[in-house]
């Protein structure tokens, strides 16, 4: 993170692919669908006549109730939303630069998930690659905009610089928490251009 012309950190530490995976702690059996076809897939394969309507119950062609399993939004999902955002200075994701970390995503959900009026709170703490990073505010803004766009309206988003990771964290945090300043910043076409560029990988 740094200014566009003179890089604050020209040679940032980049996490390897295995380190990124570790944040998801993929163990055997957890993500079986991603594996190549093995014995399990052969045994679980739909029968060859799955398309045959004469073998389905009369006047109903509805799958088993796939909504029966609730998949509430969790920290991993929120992390996955912001991980691909690209750094404005390097063509690298915030995840690979270590700016966002799974353990720094905090979510407080209401006890009753079925209540649409109940609010959830999300706190994301960012770790700039250098303590004097001049683009910390832009990145924080990017994360905030991304979450506000991608989470339901009932989620309140707070983005902060992690303690002791930036020389001006208080000032940056103040800016990121100030709704009016954020709204005013989003009126700025240049800034919006930068934010859109940062969020391009999120559309893949």
């Amino acid at each position, binding site marked *: 993170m740094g200014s566009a012309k003179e890089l604050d950190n020209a040679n940032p530490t980049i996490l390897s692919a295995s380190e990124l995976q570790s944040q998801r702690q993929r163990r055997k059996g957890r993500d079986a669908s991603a594996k190549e076809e093995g014995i399990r897939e052969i*045994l679980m394969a739909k029968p060859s006549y799955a398309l045959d*309507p004469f073998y389905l119950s*009369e006047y109903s062609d509805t799958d088993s109730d796939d909504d029966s399993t609730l998949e509430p939004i969790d920290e991993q999902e929120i992390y996955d939303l912001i991980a691909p955002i690209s750094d404005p200075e390097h063509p690298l994701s915030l995840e690979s630069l270590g700016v966002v970390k799974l353990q720094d995503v905090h979510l407080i959900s209401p006890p009753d998930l079925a209540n649409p009026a109940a609010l959830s709170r999300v706190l994301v703490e960012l770790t700039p690659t250098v303590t004097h990073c001049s683009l910390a505010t832009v990145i924080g803004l990017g994360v905030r905009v991304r979450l506000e*766009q991608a989470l339901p309206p009932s989620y309140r988003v707070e983005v902060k610089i992690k303690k002791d990771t930036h020389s001006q964290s208080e000032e940056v945090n103040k800016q990121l928490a100030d709704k009016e300043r954020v709204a005013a910043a989003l009126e700025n076409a240049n800034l919006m251009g930068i934010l859109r560029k940062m969020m391009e990988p999120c559309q893949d």
Partner: protein
Amino acid sequence: MEDKNIADWMNTSDPSQQKAIVDDIAGRLDLAALKISQVFLGLQPYLTNEDQPLPQIAQALRLLADVLNQLQAPLDRIDIHQLTTYFCQRLVNEDRLGSFRAGIKECAEILSALAKMKPKFPSTDARLIAQAIFSFNIERNLRDQKAATRRTLLELLDTLIQLYKPSLIINGSSKAFVEGVVLMGEFEKDPTCLGILLPMYEKLSKEWELSEDALLLIWDSFVRYYPITISGQNASVPTPDDLRRFLLNCFISNDTYAKNAFPRLIELLDTSQDLSANVKNEVFRTMETCITSYSLPAVLEWAPKVWDSVKFEVWNGENDEFIRGALNVIHGITRALSSQADWNDTENPSVKIVLSILNECKERLIDSRQRHVVETGKILYAVATASPYGFSWATRMLLPSMFTHWQGLVSKSDKTAILGIFNRILEARLLVEQELEAKLRDEASSQATPRGDGLSPPTRADYLSQSKDRLASTLNETRRNLVDDIYFSAMTEKISDSPDGTQFRVTTIQGLVFLMSIQDLLSDFEKGAIIESLNEILLQPNQIDSLSEAAASALQKISTGDPVKFQQITLVNFMSKLPKSISADKRQRKSELDSVIDLLDSLTKIACTATCNAETGQSATETDPKHYVFDVYQKALLSKLFDIIKQDGQLPYANVILGAIYRGLVSFDGVLDKELKSTHSAKPFVSSLHPYAWIPLTLLQQFVKIKHGPTNSETPYVGLDLPLDKDEVVDRFVSLLGDIITLALRSNQTTAENNFLNSRDVQSPNVSSQIWSLFVENAPENLNSTQQDLIYGPGDKCLASALSMSLVAGVRREDKSRLKIDVGNAALAMIKNATSTQNECSLYARVSMLYFLQLLVNKFGAAEEKIGGRSLVEIMVDLIHSCNSNPNELEVERYYQTLSYFTAAALACRDKSDQTLISLMVQGIKDPKAGRKVARSFRILLGPSKVMCKENFCLLRPIRQGRLFQFAVEEFIKLWRAYSFELQGDPNAKDIKTNCLIALTGCLAYMDTKVYLSHVNEVFPLILEGTNVQNDDFTKLACITIIRTLVPVCPGVIESHLDSVINRMTDRTHNTYYSPSDANVASRAAALEVLALLPRHIDKVAMLKRKNKVISELDTALADVSMEVRTQAQKCKMWYFNLVE
């Protein structure tokens, strides 16, 4: 005569006429019916007339050039000399005549034709020509000539160099000639000219004994082009790669250039900031070529400086390509220096250089600790793979200090880095050994001819042999440290679950594979211990994926190299972990089966993904010993399966074992297929022996039996002997068994010679077809007529028939005679069986009857077969017509079901009955009871089928889609409109309309968009309507998917229905606790994909008007209960976020 010919020539531009004139003159010259002087005299008026236009002069000269090139016999020596002198004068043009300025290219061509008239051409005239060309260059500025002219002059010079080298050397010196050539190249930039000039430089430098001065002149001339960026634009011009190669050949054409080349290249690297990536890569390539091409003295002088210039690229560089380039140079240095035979002498200059490189590596490893470990490992690899001696010194110099260094390391990442270097050294050892063995093989097979290395054949053989001995002994010196202290200790070291720990273990495993691959390095006990430790990793439950993969991959490589150890250790370990039986408790059983599956998945990967590269000298079956590992594994699985099946309630377990057999077969068949393609001419081990037909045959032998009815008085039949279980469990077992049979039969390994179906009883026509007998011994003789009758079951006979279908599925179309069944009768029997309501057969058995019918119709033309005077199609039509009066609803449904399978098969092969059959189905959707199912059955017509597929040699003609559109979709549109308007009063109108939508969607779901694109305006309203169909997830999803496909293809149509599209999609995506959606997860996600496509393909203004409405719905979708839906909503929201004015 000549005057007329020449006049004609001058007046025509017709190529055919010109050719005739040239042929005529040349022919008569060859026959001595004409003299060249006559031709020349005839041309004179055109050549010397100062008033003649220059193109006319060139035209006249062209005639002479073409005639001379056409001649079969050379001219007289005097004529040649006179012509040469004349045309040289024209080139020199001392009197500066205007007419002599014309036709320079033609002059050059004439001189070239004359020069090629060896031996008549006076060799002293070569110098005359060369001087004329050089004089022309100096006096009349070659630069002004066209590239084609310059090229012809250069070609002329090249001809002289090739044919008259001694004549071009004046007073023992070639310098004057070289100066002339270099002057010609002074300004040259044309690729075609460079394509001649550069090889000329190469020839001069390499073959002429030039002075230092002359060589310097040439160097200065060609080095200007380095790195060459000139390129041609059409095919006749040398490519950039050609020019690069020509220039590189100039660099290495003479050792003298080394003292110019290396400083120049080093300088280019030193100023690397200004170099483009291409240039830098080119510099590395040139350096590598130079270092491996110059003679040893030149290399000795420059190698240290080259090393100094490239080493930092490896240690400090960031660009992988540059690092690779630098490593190639380092590899080249060692390779070039390795040509020196005596490497034991540390005072030898070659050895000294390599030792100094290794010393620097050593310092880096020890002093800088972890900073350059990986990079230093790469350098070591580059040195060690260059030659046996390079390897020997690399290990002698580095290994002891690396061992010491290893002892002091604590963190796993540091250890992994050093282990990576050990791995590279072992890998280098294998590579060098392979290279040496290849050379020794070459040596043994080649005749005793001297080669470029200057060694006599016996000396070379000795040298290679000594190298091999030296290589073998190298690691022996450090074996204990390497094996015990490094790898075995690393393998037993405890690791955490962290990425560092995992990577450490994975790197160790990779090294163990190298250790195992080095001949005679490890004892049998050590090899066994390694295999045991790898087995342990895989047998540990919940192992980390990357660790399991590394262990399985390592065991696969080890097993193919040592098949017996696989059989004795790995196979025994894994099979002993399989439970004898599984629990009856559902939850417990699932967990036990999961463990078995994981274990067998690993074992399948080890045993079935490669053939053996080392042979045991014996085979596990009668097949190729290279299949040893696969064979013993499959045998073990079969044995386990037969044990399990004896126990009650163990069929689910048996299914897993059978699944493993099938999975292994699929993998191994792929491996054999790849090998078959890569070694096309290679003959199989035994051509009459199928590599794995023994597997399905053993299975059939075990499970297929001759059965009798309950009273023992019924006709005996072929049935399956399986334990009792739920239908779906038994069905899974039979289906897997069928898949194995089909796979074996349809495999590319199955040839006419080794095809096991009906091959044994070819000589006994009375024996029942194996399609029915399923290879059972002593099958009843009347089986051909009795076995296909399944109207009354029983269930096990119906299941046996499913296996018969599997056999038919694997038979090629051209092998119809191999079936040995009456196709028409069998197809009719299958119709009767499938529609019977009196047999108690399972779902799979019943659908197999329908597949059987499809295969007979599609592959073997059963539709038109006559049975009792009626064709099969007519019989089918009669059955459907009988539905109106048939009170048995189940039977009616089965008729329509059979019709849909029959139609699909006929449509796919474009049988002439397809229209009739489709029309019957279209009418069927109006049936008040069966109509809905008939409508849904349209999806069978084009939908994917596991049985009626190309892999099973079925005919799937592309035209089927167009025909279905014509005969069905157009009808549905008409019907839907009719029941929407004129027939809307019909009590069944609503249902029929819905059926139309369902049937239409069933067709379009699997149809290429281009088939209906021209009718999209008529189809689209129905597709939109289809998204609203209730209780039919297939139709809903298919409609949304079709819309998703159409948005980018025909945005205009979407735009004209934009609000409807948005409303239909948001109706689906709106899924809240209080207002749940009628669409399932897949449909909701697909609807969001449609919404996401709109801002990209639909008019921005139109979309901006609707943006807020869509965003409001997207906010709802962002809170969907399904993560898949939310993910799509998140992506979609970004498109609308970016949609601004």
